[in-house]
């Protein structure tokens, strides 16, 4: 094998790229169906975005380690400023918003914050003297780094993304080796605060999502409608689905957002349990590769960065799938590589690009040469 395939091709992480490409193609097929058989509606832009962002990922892959370490904090600060800008524009415009229109592209800074935060924290713990890991100096600056973007995102208000940011940051802190009892304590505090937060911090529409998640049947035509219809779509798919293009839940508009948040339900209705297992398998292969990259990284920075990125991608997948299957409240989190939407694709491709970058560092300890 080694002799036949040229070396630059052979050394690419195909164990991740093959499932990824198949997943994106499969996603395009589902979007084609969700668009009512119209390729140009969702599927084509999905593929174009993937190809374009693959270029971005490839460029990130080539970044040298020293350069990345150098720009880690500036990137974080830049994204934080963008978040503040979103708040400012929203306040001036008289209403909250999540997007920043930069003319050529519409940017959602909270999405960019996820990899940026992981990068900043990895950089922070990399630089932190080893002896200080058990002291407040390991906790407080990281807490501020996580807290600032979380607060800004919560102001938008976007609970789902805020939780995703917190999850990525917490995983990096956990893996950095902070004392376990801090996490246990935080968990206990969290269980006390959660009910309080529910009553005092959540918007009414978010509260409703939580209550209807607990009992979707209580309001089958109102807020529970999303969950109920999604479960019907998945459940009616059966073992092998209703057939490509034959999904009635999606095509007759019973399923809300069949091309974005609920794309998995759209897929499951037409491809059934088999299709669902294939998607899960693809995600498993991609994430397993990511963790292998983390384990084989030769330094602390690479390890934390890679593991944090895997956690970020995982959070997307897990929350989205739990939501569509009725295991979590409806929070607007799309499914990576399948849902139609630029911001999510951008974030996930940046994460993958950085994972491939760490993977390249691992094979080239010197880290200086291109390719």
């Amino acid at each position, binding site marked *: 094998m080694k002799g036949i395939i040229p070396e630059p091709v052979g050394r690419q992480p195909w164990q991740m790229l093959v499932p990824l490409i198949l997943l994106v193609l499969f996603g395009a097929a589902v979007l084609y169906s969700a668009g009512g058989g119209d390729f140009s509606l969702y599927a084509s832009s999905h593929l174009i975005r993937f190809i374009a962002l693959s270029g971005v990922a490839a460029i990130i892959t080539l970044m040298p380690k020293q350069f990345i370490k150098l720009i880690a904090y500036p990137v974080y600060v830049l994204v934080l400023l963008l978040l503040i800008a979103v708040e400012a524009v929203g306040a001036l415009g008289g209403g909250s918003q999540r997007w920043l229109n930069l003319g050529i592209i519409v940017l959602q800074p909270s999405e960019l914050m996820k990899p940026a935060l992981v990068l900043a924290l990895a950089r922070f713990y990399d630089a932190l003297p080893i002896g200080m890991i058990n002291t407040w100096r390991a906790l407080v600056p990281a807490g501020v780094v996580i807290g600032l973007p979380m607060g800004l995102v919560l102001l938008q208000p976007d609970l789902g993304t805020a939780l995703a940011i917190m999850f990525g940051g917490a995983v990096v802190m956990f893996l950095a080796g902070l004392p376990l009892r801090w996490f246990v304590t935080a968990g206990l505090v969290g269980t006390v605060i959660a009910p309080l937060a529910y009553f005092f911090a959540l918007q009414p529409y978010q509260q409703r999502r939580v209550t209807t998640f607990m009992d979707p049947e209580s309001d089958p035509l109102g807020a529970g409608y999303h969950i109920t219809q999604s479960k019907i779509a998945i459940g009616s798919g059966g073992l092998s689905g209703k057939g490509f293009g034959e999904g009635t839940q999606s095509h*007759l508009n019973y399923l809300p957002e069949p091309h974005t948040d609920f794309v998995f339900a759209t897929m499951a209705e037409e491809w059934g349990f088999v299709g669902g297992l294939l998607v899960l398998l693809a995600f498993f292969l991609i994430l397993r590769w990511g963790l292998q990259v983390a384990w084989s990284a030769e330094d602390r920075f690479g390890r934390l960065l890679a593991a944090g990125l895997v956690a970020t991608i995982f959070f997307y997948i897990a929350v989205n799938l739990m939501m569509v299957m009725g295991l979590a409240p409806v929070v607007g989190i799309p499914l990576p590589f399948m849902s139609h939407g630029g911001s999510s694709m951008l974030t996930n491709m940046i994460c993958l690009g950085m994972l491939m970058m760490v993977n390249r560092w691992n094979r080239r300890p010197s880290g200086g040469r291109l390719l």
Partner: protein
Amino acid sequence: MRWRRRSKELINQATLKNRFDRRSMLLGTLQGGVGVLLAARMGYLAIAENEKYELESESNRVNLSLIPPRRGWILDRNGNPLASNRADFRVDVIPERMVRPEQSVALLGSILGMSATDQHDLSTRIAEARGFQAVEVGQGLSYEQFAAISVRLPEMPGVVPQRGFSRFYPTGPAVGHLLGYVGPASREEYEADRNPLLVTPGYKIGKDGAEKVFEQRLRGVPGARRVEVTASGRIVRDLSTREDIQGNPVQLTIDGPLQDFAARRLGPESGSVVVMDCRTGDLLCMSSMPSFDPNSFSAGIGSVEYAMLRENERVPLRNKVLQGLYPPGSTIKPMHAMAFLRNGIDPSEAITCGGGLRVGNRFFRCHGNHGRVDMNRAIHQSCNSYFYYFAQRVGFDNVADFAKDCGLGQRFDLPVVSQFFGTVPDSRWKMRKHHSAWQSYDTVNSSIGQGYYLTSPLQLAVMAARLATGRVVEPALLKTGERAPFASLDFNSEQIGHIRQAMSDTVNGPGTAGRARLPLENVLMAGKTGTAQAVGLNRGDGRNTAWRFRHHGLFVFFAPVDNPIYAGAIVVEHGGGSGAATPIAKDVMTYLFDPQKGMDALHALEKEWGGTAQQRLEQQYRAYASARGQSVAPSPPRPRQPIDAVAAESRLSAQAKAALAGEEVMPTQGEAGPAAATPPNEPAPAAPSDAEPR
């Protein structure tokens, strides 16, 4: 303390790498666990619960709607429809599915050209309707209106346009009380009969009259339509359709043209005409006027029109044939005479009427001084004294027994919603009702059909039929095959002949009803007039006073005298006296024997009155509405045949056709009767309007 000691332990690169490996392994395992959980959850949904969700998905996707069955026709005795169905476009709304009712109503109003009143009516009905109940917006829409609504459906959730059938009564008000009308089921009706059909938009059930009595037979079997719908209710495609099965027809004994003629002949009066075939008991005509137009009731009557009917002092909402009770007055005199015969009074026995009769220590007046009066003269001169005298002699309880045998105070076995049975007073009744003994003045009053006596026009007609034939003629409304012969009242033909002769003399001899003599050469009608006091005479003489204080005019009759075929009764409420009823009897009977002559008389009168009953009702409505500052759109032109088969005029064309064919037109006296003009074996329910495929 143990934690604190551990935190003090030396931390180096290896420790952290070790921690990372352990913790990342833990996280990886947790992630894998979540993956397994998701796979299990999906398997549970898609495999274990598959059946349940597949069903829910189907019930999302497939919308089953009932197609209201076409209602069975109501036929007259000749097989012509008194009530049929017309294919039309209709639109209903289902209030609970409406999102913005006001907006939808405004849009519907602009498409259908509804007046502000109609829109207001509609909004009220929508607000009052219970969620499940469909509210009719309109029927008889043009195709353009129907298409315009169908196109704009997405803006008006809850609006249901459909092709359907609406009930059609060709002779309108003439059959209003007889047939009733149809309308959407009320909440009570739905709760009594939990048939989903009742809440199907466009389905109507019988609300009164024959429509209500024969509801189950007329109903039919609904069809069903399975359609695929989107979440917003837009129909994507038809999946399958099952045709409805039309309800069974109901054939009545009513003679459609006669019913129409009699109703129209009543003209502006408030009253009723009952004609029956005294050989079979078939009720040929049960007209009650003024009436309502069941077509507008069935189309969902407007509040203004309903108010007009409700406020009318001539109670167009009451069926006077069955629910009007009147003192029979002198019309019961032949029957009382027959009661005297039964109790052994010789018809030639006479008394002297001295302008009244002393009974006990009171003098009871007669309306004239008739001198020597025997039974014949007593009847045709309507002499009160004779009846005062012989009722005393025979005893009124005996007379009352015979009155009951003649059908007075009785309820008949008829398929009607309700019938009032009135009162035949006797001593037992008075004791029960008033706790006092029967007095001689009670006999006097009752002997001339006043006092406590109350009868319905139907009972009077039955009485006339029983007197004419001497048999217990039972009235029938539903046309069935042969009926068992009626029991005899046990009179010999001489006795029957005596009464017949006396009643004939009333009309054709020196009697009180000369105006009723038929303008026909070979048919004689027998009858008896009656004038009943509506209120005490202190309100005037009962003639030249306010309408509601005037006397009722009554007339009972049968014809031909020597071989009675038809018997009947006419009551004109507050007509001022029997003179209001006799000409109507004359024209109705003339129409039966010679339609041309009857129609000529009617047409002359209608010219005077300003149109047929239906036309006058419409004019009245327009005048009423404009008096309230509301304009009424002229009623949409009905796709009428030149002459409806059940309209009074139809007999003329049938006659003309028969004449052209060189047949004998109408046997003046014979077994066939008018029914011979149109063969009764005509297959009825195959009319084109109902058979139209959808």
